[in-house]
C-alpha cells in the first residue's frame, strides 16, 4: 500500500481530535436512524459503529480504554465510554489502514515481532488516531504483552493506568482476590474521577445478551443451520466484549439469531475456530467455503454462563475475569473446553490461525495438537498475522486447507 504523505496524516489526526466533526456525525446518525431503521445486521452494525465513533471522539463522557478481558460492564456501570484498542486495531485492519499505524510504531522502535494488535494500537496512539483516554484499565490476562502495551500507552498519554493482577488458577480464592482488587479500583475511581456505580441496569443488559448468546450457540449446534461466510462471527467481536452491558448488544444478538434462523445453506464439514483470524481483507473465508469447511464455534465468542449479581458486583465480575482467563490460558482447561465443543457441536476438526507475535497461544500449540490427536480430532495450524498483511501467506493457506479438507473427507 502506498503510504499517504505526513501532512495528510497530521491533518487527519488534527480533525480526529476536534469535537465539531463528531457533532455533525451524531446529527447524521440520527438522520440515518430515522431514514433507514436498521433491519439487517450490516445496517445495524454500520449505525452502531457510527454512533460509537460520534460518542467516543465527541467525548460525550469519560473515554476509558480497556484490555480485551477487562469486563465492559464495570465501565458501563459508571457511565464511562469503553474503548478497546485491540478491537479498534482489528477494525483499522478491516478498513485496510493497518500499515499506517504499524509503520509509525516500528519507527518508534516497537519491533515487528511484537503482537500486531498491540503494535497497531501503539502506532494509532502515537498518531493520535484513537480517542484520547481519560484513564486506562487492563488485566494481566490473557497475556503479559497486554500489560506492557498498556504501560506504554500510559507513557504516551500520561493518564492513570490501573492494572488488575489475575491469578493463574480458577478458584474461590482467585475470585475473591480479583473482587477485592475491583472494589479497590471502584473506590479509587470514585475518589479520583468522581464517578458513581449503578449495577442493576448494566447487569440486566449483560444477562439478557448472554442468554441470547446461549440461544444462538444452541442453534449453531444444529446441523441444518450455519453462519456464513465462515468466521464471520468474529467480525462481531465488539458485541461480545465492548458492548456487553449495553442495550446495543441485546438488540444485536436478537438480530443475529434471526439471521441465523433464516440461513438456508450449509457446508459439508463442521469446524471449531481457535484464536482469532486475519481481519484485513483476505480470501480466507472464501477459501474455507470453497473447501466446504464451515465454522460452527469460535473460541473468542464463547462466553461463560455466569450469573451477574448486582448485589455482589465485584464477586460476579471477579468470577468472569478468573473464568475467562483460566479457560483461555491453562492448557488442560482449554483442551477440555475444546473437546467438549467437539462433542456439543458435532465438529470434525479445528483450525487455529496463529498470530505471529502471540507467545501465550503459540506456546501451547504442540501440547494442544498432542491432546487432540490422542482423542482422534485433527487440528490445522495456519501461520500468519491477524493484522499485518506482510506475514500473509495466502497460497500456503490454500494448499494446507485443501490437504486438511482431504483429511476430513478421508
Amino acid at each position, binding site marked *: 500500500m502506498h503510504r499517504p504523505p505526513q501532512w495528510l496524516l497530521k491533518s487527519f489526526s488534527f480533525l480526529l481530535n476536534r469535537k465539531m466533526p463528531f457533532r455533525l456525525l451524531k446529527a447524521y446518525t440520527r438522520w440515518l436512524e430515522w431514514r433507514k431503521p436498521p433491519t439487517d445486521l450490516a445496517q445495524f452494525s454500520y449505525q452502531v459503529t457510527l454512533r460509537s465513533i460520534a460518542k467516543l471522539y465527541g467525548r460525550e463522557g469519560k473515554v476509558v480504554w480497556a484490555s480485551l478481558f477487562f469486563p465492559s460492564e464495570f465501565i458501563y456501570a459508571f457511565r464511562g465510554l469503553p474503548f478497546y484498542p485491540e478491537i479498534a486495531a482489528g477494525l483499522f485492519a478491516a478498513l485496510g489502514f493497518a500499515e499506517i499505524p504499524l509503520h509509525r510504531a516500528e519507527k*518508534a*522502535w*516497537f*519491533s515487528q*515481532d*511484537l*503482537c500486531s494488535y498491540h503494535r497497531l494500537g*501503539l502506532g494509532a496512539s*502515537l498518531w493520535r488516531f484513537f480517542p484520547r483516554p481519560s484513564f486506562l484499565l487492563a488485566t*494481566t490476562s490473557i*497475556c*503479559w*504483552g497486554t*500489560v*506492557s*502495551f498498556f*504501560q*506504554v500507552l*500510559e*507513557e*504516551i498519554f500520561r493518564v492513570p493506568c490501573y*492494572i*488488575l*493482577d489475575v*491469578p*493463574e488458577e480458577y478458584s474461590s480464592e482467585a475470585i475473591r*482476590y480479583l473482587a*477485592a*482488587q475491583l472494589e*479497590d479500583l471502584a473506590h479509587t475511581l470514585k475518589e479520583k474521577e468522581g464517578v458513581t456505580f449503578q449495577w442493576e441496569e448494566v447487569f440486566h443488559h449483560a444477562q439478557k445478551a448472554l442468554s441470547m448468546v446461549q440461544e444462538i450457540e444452541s442453534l449453531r449446534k444444529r446441523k441444518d443451520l450455519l453462519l456464513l461466510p465462515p468466521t464471520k462471527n468474529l467480525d462481531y467481536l465488539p458485541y461480545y466484549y465492548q458492548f456487553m452491558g449495553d442495550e446495543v448488544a441485546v438488540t444485536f444478538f436478537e438480530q443475529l439469531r434471526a439471521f441465523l434462523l433464516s440461513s438456508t445453506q450449509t457446508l459439508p464439514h463442521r469446524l471449531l475456530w481457535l484464536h482469532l483470524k486475519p481481519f484485513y481483507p483476505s480470501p480466507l473465508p472464501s477459501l474455507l467455503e470453497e473447501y466446504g469447511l464451515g465454522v460452527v464455534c469460535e473460541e473468542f465468542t464463547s462466553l461463560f454462563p455466569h450469573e451477574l449479581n448486582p448485589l455482589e458486583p465485584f464477586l460476579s465480575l471477579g468470577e468472569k475475569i478468573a473464568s475467562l482467563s483460566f479457560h483461555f*490460558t491453562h*492448557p488442560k482447561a482449554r483442551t477440555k473446553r475444546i473437546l467438549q465443543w467437539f462433542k456439543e457441536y458435532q465438529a470434525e476438526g479445528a483450525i487455529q490461525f*496463529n498470530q*505471529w*507475535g502471540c*507467545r*501465550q497461544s*503459540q*506456546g*501451547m*500449540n*504442540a*501440547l494442544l495438537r*498432542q491432546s487432540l490427536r490422542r482423542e482422534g480430532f485433527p487440528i490445522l495450524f495456519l501461520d500468519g498475522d491477524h493484522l499485518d498483511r506482510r506475514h500473509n501467506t495466502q497460497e500456503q493457506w490454500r494448499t494446507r486447507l485443501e490437504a486438511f479438507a482431504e483429511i476430513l473427507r478421508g
Partner: protein
Amino acid sequence: MHENQVGYFCHYVPWELFEACGLRGTLVTPAPPFPREREAFFPVPFCPFSKLIAEEIHRAPFSLYVLGFACDASRRTKEILEYLHTKKNLPKTILSLPIPFLGSSWGIQRLAENLRQLSLQLALLAGIHPWEVETRLGEVILSSYEERKEISTLFFAGRLPTQALLTHKRGESLPSQEARPSVLLIGSHLFLSEVVQIAEECGLSVIEESPRGTGPWLILPEQDFVPSSDPFLDLARLYTLHKFPCPRVNQRRAQTIHKMVDHLSLTGVIFLYPQFCDAFLYQLGLLRRFLAVPLLPLAHDTEPNLAQWTTRIEAFREVVRCAPSSPMAPQKL
C-alpha cells in the same frame, strides 16, 4: 544427581529461600553447544532463552527445579517440560513460582503468599519443618541484603569490573577498579561475555547490567530496607521494591537506567536482547524514549551473530565518540 541442589530461573526466584531450606540454588544458564532436541515443541517466534532453558533442564543433572512464571514464555516452557518428563518418566520435580503484576501492593502481597507456598513445598522436599525455614529466612535475607548493598555501592560508583559477577561466588571478596566505564551494556542472559569482549576490543569500557551478571544483585540506593515480622513479605519487598527493576517493570526500569546513565556520565548504551521476548521488545521502545545518549540494539536468537555485532559495535564506537558533549534531547514517543 546432585543432592540438595536446586536449579532455578528467572532471577525473581529468590535463592534466599533455598538457603533457608538448606538447599543450594543454581541459576540455570544454558551453555554452548546448544542441542536442538526439544525445539519442535516450541513455535519459531518464541523466546530463544526459553528454548535453551528447556534443553538445559532436560539434560541437566538436578532432580529439582523452580521456574518463575514472569512471562508467557516461561509458563509455556514449564508446561512443555512437564509433558516431556511425564512422557519419558524422568524423575524430576519442577515447581513454579508465579510472579504477579508488581505495580501495586496487591501484587507484592500475592508474591509473598506464593513464596510462602513455595517454601512449604521446598521444606517438604528438604525434610525440614516449615517453621524452621521461616526462622532461618529472616537471617538469610539480612545477610543477603548486606551483600547486595556492597555490590550495588561498587556498581553505582562505576567501580565494579565488567565481568566480576559473571564468575563471582558468594562470600568471596569483590575486586574493584578505578577506570570509569563509558558504555552501559544491558540485556540478555545469553552471549553477554561475547559482547563484552567485542566492546572491549573496540576500545569501549563497559559496565554491565544483565540477568546473569549484576542484575540479580543490584538494589536501588534510594531507600533503606527495613525488615518486618513477616520474612516472606520482606523477601517479596526486597525483590520488587528494592531490586534493580527487570525488563518486565517497564517504566521504572527505563527511568532507573536513565538515572544511572546520567549519574555515571555514560556516553552510550548497548542493548542486547533475545528476539521474540516481549518484555525486552517493549523495553527497547521505552528506552529510546527515556535515554538521552546513543542506544545500540543487538538482537540474538539461539546463536550469537559475532561478525555482525563486531561491525555494529565498531560503528557505535564512532557514534559515541562523535556524540555532542551535551546530551541529546530524549526522543518523543
